Structure formats: C-alpha cells, structure tokens
C-alpha cells in the first residue's frame, strides 16, 4: 500500500506521520508542496504543523499551493485523503470539507491528551476498530470547529461527524469540549467518507513506552482497509 505525505513550508508532523505509516506497513513517500503531481498513492496525508506560518488564516495559503490541484482530483475520484490538525484546516480551506477551524474559544494553545468518541464506523478509517473511545493527543491554537446551521444539519444528516471530544466514559458534552468546537466535533468526513480531517494526532500515539497505543489501532485498521 502506497501513501504520500505532503510537506508544506512549516509542516512539522510530516516525519512523525512518515514513521507511523511505515511502522504499520505503508510504503510511504514524501511529496513537496511545489510539485505538480502526486506519485501513485492509495492514501494522501496532509500533516500537522503551521504551513506558511499560519499566515492569513490557518491552511489558507497551503490550500492554494501547486500540489493541491492533484490532491483535489485524487479526492474527487474517491481516493483516501487524511488531514491531521493543520491538514484538517487545509482541507476546509480547499473546500473538500465543510466549515472552518477557528481560534480556540479561550484563546489558549492546547497541548494535551484527550479522549474522542468514534461516531461513525461505516468507513475505511474506523471500520474495524474494536474500541469506541480513543485516547489521542491534540496540540493546536485553531481547533474550534465552526460551520453554519445549514451546514451542520447537512453534516449530521449525512453522518459526517467522525469523532467528538469526550471523557473516558464517552460523554461528549460541553464539559469535555477543549476548544469550543460546535457539537464537540474533533473530526469530520466528506459525504462519501473518503476524506477525513481531524484535529487529534494518531501519529503521536503509536508507542507503548512514550505515549499510548490508540493511534496504533487507527493505523492498523487503515492499512487493513486500503
């Protein structure tokens, strides 16, 4: 299985993602943002970081970079595209996912472990994960998911909510909302569920000694379904 991680100026989770993908069996290649074409891939990953220094709006400049056209073509043809953190912000800025990630409600940069509840397993990203709640890591200043009421209705009707922030029991209420995201949304799909954007970093939870292994469950499942 081939994967491609795109590197933008300011990406900083690209190598962690490379390590994670390779650990679980992907043949990963790194692709520079100014390339015109993406080499043949089964999965494209937009990594976390601060592409273009978060200038203008997070992900807005990266969303117009040269490589993006082929990412959009790949996504529209049904290819799997995963955006983590800044990658999620880029996906909303390109219009591949609805809504936007705003500044955190309390203006703080949040860096901590959180629990997220899997809301939809009818897709390649979460299909065979046995757990309902995963412990993952977040590190962001703009993770406060927002969209219009109409968009939210459409997202809910199409079961596009992927994961929500919750406690270890799965309560995804306002007490377990770190950043003010509407409906505690931590990650969403497009309608066809081939594109996933999420703020938590599964690539930071793949080592039993350093972190935890709920990220391993994510990648093990993914390689099994690609």
């Amino acid at each position, binding site marked *: 299985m081939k994967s491609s991680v795109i590197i933008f100026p300011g990406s900083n989770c690209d190598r962690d993602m490379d390590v994670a993908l390779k650990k679980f069996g992907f043949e990963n290649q790194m692709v520079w943002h100014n390339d015109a074409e993406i080499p043949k891939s089964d999965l494209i990953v937009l990594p976390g970081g601060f592409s273009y220094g978060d200038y*203008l709006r997070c992900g*807005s400049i990266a969303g*117009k970079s040269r490589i993006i056209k082929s990412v959009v073509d790949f996504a529209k043809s049904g290819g799997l595209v995963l955006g983590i953190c800044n990658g999620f912000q880029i996906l*909303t800025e390109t219009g591949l996912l609805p809504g*936007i990630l*705003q*500044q955190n409600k309390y203006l703080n940069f949040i860096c901590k472990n959180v629990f997220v509840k899997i809301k939809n397993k009818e897709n390649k990203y979460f299909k065979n994960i046995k757990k309902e709640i995963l412990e993952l890591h977040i590190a962001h200043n703009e993770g*406060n998911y927002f969209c*219009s009421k109409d968009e939210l209705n459409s997202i809910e009707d199409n079961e596009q909510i992927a994961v929500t922030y919750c406690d270890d029991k799965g309560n995804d209420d306002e007490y377990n909302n770190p950043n003010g995201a509407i409906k505690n949304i931590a990650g969403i799909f497009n309608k066809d569920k081939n594109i996933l954007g999420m703020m938590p970093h599964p690539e930071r939870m793949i080592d039993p000694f350093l972190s935890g292994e709920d990220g391993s469950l994510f990648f093990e499942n993914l390689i099994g379904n690609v």
Partner: protein
Amino acid sequence: MNVKVIVTLKNGVLDPQGKAIQQTLNGMTFDNVSEVRQGKFFDIEVNESDENKAKSQVEEMCKKLLANLVIEDYKIL
C-alpha cells in the same frame, strides 16, 4: 490602481480576540466600550487603470482567498 479591503468576522460569529480587547479597554478608562470586533485590512496595488475592473478583480480575490465566507465578510473601500 490602489484598492483597500477590510475583512471582518460575520455578525454572530464568536470573536474571542475582539472580546479580550473589549474587556481590556473596559479595565482601562474606557468603560463605555460595549463591543469590539477585530478584522484585517489589505492595501492592494493592482496594475490596472480601470477602477471597475480593478475592483471586480479584488472582489474575486476576496471570495477566493482573502476572506473565508463561512465566517467572514469583506468590504471593498
């Protein structure tokens, strides 16, 4: 042709920075400030002498890059 643009958050969209600025102003001597909305200002030089053409180009720029219409409005001055 010089075109100036202001981008602000739409009414109803939470503006935590504006809120923090307002509270700080209230804590200084400006206790009659009831709301602050923070925005962005763009000063754009377009190599185009026709004002209408330049402005319609800038409008396209606003829609495609300068503003995110999910949460922001733009105003060409």
